[in-house]
């Protein structure tokens, strides 16, 4: 019998779909004969009492979740997401450097250094990628800090904002599609496949409402993993192999039967009735991975 700590923050219990998924994890683990305890940041001293740690709070090398992951790793516990995955996936510059180096098909990307943030460079970027282009802060998650810019003024305004935290930004070609594929991968195997639809009149799956703090999200269409295109699954597995063998959500765009990786996310969203709709075994597979 294993003893699993699930590290969560209070915000993980605000969305009923996420609460449903967390309950499913707990019920599945207990059904398999394991203990499954939610651990909040007030109870981190309890981590060593567990055999494995499953992180559901948002990860980033600068967040508490990294401290939890690295602590568990140093204690020799099994941990999802492991610190290396958080470090690589949490920084899009790291991710695209790896994709470039290892020939993983990805959206045309260049890096913009703070030192070369000037008129000539911006023009070069527009000439290379056309207008608009997508500016991405390396620490983006949940579609935040990703903005489309079509003129030098807005390019400067957005880049200046993103440069406050990072000395390098990601600039990508704008490649609109009706949906992004999301392939869930665990231990180098495909766990689930979904289509993250883009809301009508928008260009990404999650878009902030104008003047409000809330987001509009597109629909999620779930597929049985065996029905997803083979080439899609191969591309996702190739991208994940560069990072590790943990749990990842790979975003992929499809153009004329070709698949290009948008990004690999550690700590992918798992909502009850969405990612798990056609692949009910994702809970048991993750629990088995944590306890084996």
């Amino acid at each position, binding site marked *: 019998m294993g003893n699993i700590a699930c590290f969560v923050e209070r915000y993980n219990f605000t969305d009923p779909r996420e609460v449903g998924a967390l309950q499913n994890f707990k019920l599945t683990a207990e059904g398999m004969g394991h203990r499954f305890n939610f651990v909040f940041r007030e109870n*981190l001293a309890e981590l060593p009492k567990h055999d494995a740690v499953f992180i559901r709070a948002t990860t980033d090398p600068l967040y508490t979740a990294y401290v939890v992951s690295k602590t568990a790793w140093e204690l020799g516990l099994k941990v999802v997401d492991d610190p290396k995955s958080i*470090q690589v996936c949490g*920084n899009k510059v790291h991710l695209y*450097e790896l994709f470039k180096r290892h020939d993983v098909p990805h959206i045309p990307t260049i890096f913009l*250094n703070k030192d070369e943030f000037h008129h000539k460079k911006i023009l070069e970027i527009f000439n290379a990628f056309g207008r608009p282009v997508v500016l991405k802060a390396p620490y983006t998650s949940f579609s935040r800090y990703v903005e489309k810019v079509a003129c030098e003024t807005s390019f400067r305004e957005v880049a200046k904002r993103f440069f406050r935290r990072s000395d*390098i930004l990601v600039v990508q070609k704008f490649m609109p599609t009706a949906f992004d594929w999301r392939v869930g991968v665990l231990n180098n195997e495909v766990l689930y496949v979904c289509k993250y639809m883009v809301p009508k009149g928008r260009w990404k799956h999650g878009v902030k409402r104008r003047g409000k703090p809330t987001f509009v999200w597109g629909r999620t269409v779930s597929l049985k993993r065996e029905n997803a295109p083979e080439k899609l699954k191969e591309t996702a597995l190739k991208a994940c192999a560069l990072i590790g063998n943990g749990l990842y959500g790979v975003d992929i765009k499809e153009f004329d039967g070709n698949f290009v990786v948008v990004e690999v996310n550690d700590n992918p969203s798992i909502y009850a009735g969405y990612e798990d709709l056609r692949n009910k075994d994702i809970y048991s597979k993750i629990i088995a991975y944590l306890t084996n």
Partner: protein
Amino acid sequence: MLVVSNIDLALETPIMKPSAFLESSIKDFTLNINNDYRYLKTGYYVSLHAEVLGNRVIPSTENIVDAYRTPILLLRASKAGITTMPFVVTDSAKQIMSNFDFPTVIFAVNPFSFEGFRIAKNRSSLYKAVKSLSMNYKFAVCAQPLLGEIISFKSIFGRCEVKEQAQKIAEEVYNIFRIPLCKLHVQLAGERAFLSGLQQIRKDELTQLDLQLLRREVSRLLRDGERLVG
């Protein structure tokens, strides 16, 4: 060995600027000299680029991320035998008070605040420190008991000019994390020294003596090869 530095080392050997290195594909053992290695800063990206190219690099990105996160710094340091104080990671002042008596020393564990630490001598200053460093309780803080005084000093390749016990800690921290330039916070209590935290150095804090020491260390590494840096 390739030296990439944002500090003018005035050496005869060519030194590469970080911006030039980030555009290059040079494959060589890389020594990354920077006053600021924090995550998402240029010093970090130089090490990242070197690693992606397959180069051995000092410091590694893993060590950078760990050394600048106080709880991980203390955890790895204590595992390696460096004396550290017990600590708690929390956003609750109440929990800190239930673990330690006053005064306590508080470090931020959030993505925005990087500057040093706060000392809380009583309940109200603790609440203020936790509220501020946790950014209104959104992030956690790392609290340690304060049994003596905290001294902060520059460590250049593990060398520094402070009391013997603290000097030993600087050497040991360098041996574990290999951060060539940083500022260390060490607690002195009686005859003992305890590692408390690590942060970046501002360029204007580097004196002529520091630069001389830095030059000497880099020259020694260039002369004696990679074996000295492991």
